[in-house]
């Protein structure tokens, strides 16, 4: 227990039976500030939270079971629905895991496009998380500034793949469509205009007395606790854990790009807010470098690898393309997968998003385990909220960025 946690919180829970003046409050499953469907049973002493018991599973839809029945290309549609705030990051994480299992290297252009998408998804996720945290603590204008820019991001995704929300953009060995000049133009425009929005957002909240009072010193997570509770991503970095998979285990093209890892020491809601704001600026740096250095060339692996569908011109005008398309489309052919197991993690906006895949030779995974950051962070919630007031529940919940669809899968 941290020194800053009120003494109240450290009292033994066994004493609760004697304190019959405590009351129980059901927070959720349908409450505007949970944003999705999750339930917390709070034990209150007046306005102080003595204990919190999360009750999850309302949105459980068996995604991992479905992963054992959908093939490696079909399952990408399910990953969209996990963290639906940043579906592009999930798509990329899933297919990086599949490509690791297959031992496949995608062309540089594809890697650059995926990097840009991951970072745009990170900005989109952080905008929602910080925006909603502002909204829950009373900063409505801030939320509107954030959501306006998310709209621009949705337009960019729509230009790229036709879908705004559930993108399903990546494929094994490539992506669905190549990036068009219009996409590049829209990303450049976003890079030009977005810093002004962050400036505005920071001006609205960074010196806002109400917001600081409601977040500073609330929900403190120490570095030791963050490690013990397996935290990752912005939640861990706000507590002084300097782990960032983009730097520590570079994937895609992150090792060629110049960016910083943003950390804080205090580990409270305020630090988590600041880390996310700082990460958006770094993400913008990455997007800028990647879009200006976007290489030309093919976007999918060639027909020799026989994993990505060849483009239509190849199919209609070459015999190799036709055969490759035919073999991939036949349900009894598909591609070769080793009977092996591998784990691949990416630095998703929310934390470490990894997939543990077991291949059995067919093009359907034998086991598709998703390591969901929301699930792991929500386990910490009761420890962060004990001893704080009821109104702090929304601040802590907002700062952890719990997405129930990813939580329950």
């Amino acid at each position, binding site marked *: 227990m941290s020194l800053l946690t009120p003494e109240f919180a450290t009292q033994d829970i066994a004493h609760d039976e004697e304190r019959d003046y405590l009351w129980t409050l059901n927070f959720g499953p349908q409450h505007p500030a949970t944003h999705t469907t999750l339930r917390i049973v709070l034990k209150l002493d007046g306005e102080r939270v003595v204990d919190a018991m999360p009750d999850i599973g309302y949105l459980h839809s068996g995604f991992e*079971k479905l992963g054992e029945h959908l093939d490696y290309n079909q399952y990408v549609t399910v990953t969209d629905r996990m963290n639906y705030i940043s579906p592009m990051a999930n798509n990329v994480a899933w297919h990086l895991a599949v490509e690791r299992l297959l031992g496949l290297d995608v062309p540089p252009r594809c890697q650059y496009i995926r990097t840009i998408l991951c970072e745009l998804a990170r900005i989109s996720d952080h905008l929602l998380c910080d925006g909603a945290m502002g909204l829950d603590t009373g900063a409505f204008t801030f939320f509107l500034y954030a959501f306006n820019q998310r709209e621009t991001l949705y337009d960019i995704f729509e230009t790229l793949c036709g879908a705004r929300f559930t993108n399903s953009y990546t494929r094994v060995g490539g992506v669905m469509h190549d990036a068009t000049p219009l996409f590049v133009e829209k990303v450049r425009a976003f890079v030009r205009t977005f810093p002004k929005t962050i400036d505005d957002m920071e001006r609205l909240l960074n010196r806002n007395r109400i917001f600081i009072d409601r977040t500073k010193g609330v929900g403190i997570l120490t570095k030791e606790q963050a490690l013990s509770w397996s935290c990752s991503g912005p939640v861990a970095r706000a507590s002084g854990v300097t782990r960032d998979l983009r730097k520590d285990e570079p994937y895609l093209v992150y090792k060629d790009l110049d960016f910083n890892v943003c950390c804080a020491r205090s580990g409270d809601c305020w630090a988590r807010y600041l880390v996310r704001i700082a990460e958006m600026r770094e993400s913008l740096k990455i997007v800028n470098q990647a879009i200006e250095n976007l290489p030309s060339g093919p976007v999918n692996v060639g027909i020799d690898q026989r994993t990505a569908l060849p483009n239509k011109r190849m199919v209609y005008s070459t015999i190799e393309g036709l055969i490759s398309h035919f073999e991939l489309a036949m349900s009894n052919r598909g591609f070769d997968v080793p009977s092996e197991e591998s784990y691949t993690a990416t630095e998703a906006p929310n934390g470490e998003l990894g997939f543990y895949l*077991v291949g059995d*030779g067919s093009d359907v995974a034998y086991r598709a*385990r998703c*390591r969901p950051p929301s699930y792991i962070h929500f386990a910490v919630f009761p420890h962060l909220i004990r001893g704080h007031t009821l109104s702090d529940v929304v601040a802590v919940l907002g700062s952890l960025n719990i997405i129930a669809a990813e939580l329950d899968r």
Partner: protein
Amino acid sequence: MMDSKHREALLAAFPALAQSEFRGQVRFVVPRGSLLDVARKLRDELRFDLLVDITCVDYLHYRGATDRFGMVYLLASTATNERVTVRVFLNEPDLTIPSLTPLWEGANWMEREVWDMFGITFAGHPDHRRILLPDEFTAHPLRKDYPLQGRGERHNFPILTRSQG
């Protein structure tokens, strides 16, 4: 991705561990009895301080598999950025394995999910309950002998009407 020095240090302490590697990922198969000792050694001496994930695989229909369940413990080091996978194989009827909650608090919910989905029991777990599925559920749906569409549980959930609510 595990340093060879650390690999030898672990094998020196536990010579019986079977080791394998795939795409640079090092895996050790640990007997159930020494799981806690191996995990403690990895955490305290070899600085694998982060428990990334705990999951399980049911090898019922897997070609060439000899064991029914394979537990997967993914560990990582925040100091050296190494990763290691620890495997423990379990067979019916004894599906009990020591809990890692004494070492990492984060193991709590991960193990509850494995219990919920696979029916593996964790000895010494402080809060051994289902987590995602309702408490009255009896099956463990990620087992391979559980059908994709379920066994009719969805139709048998008690229905609450507005007047009862």
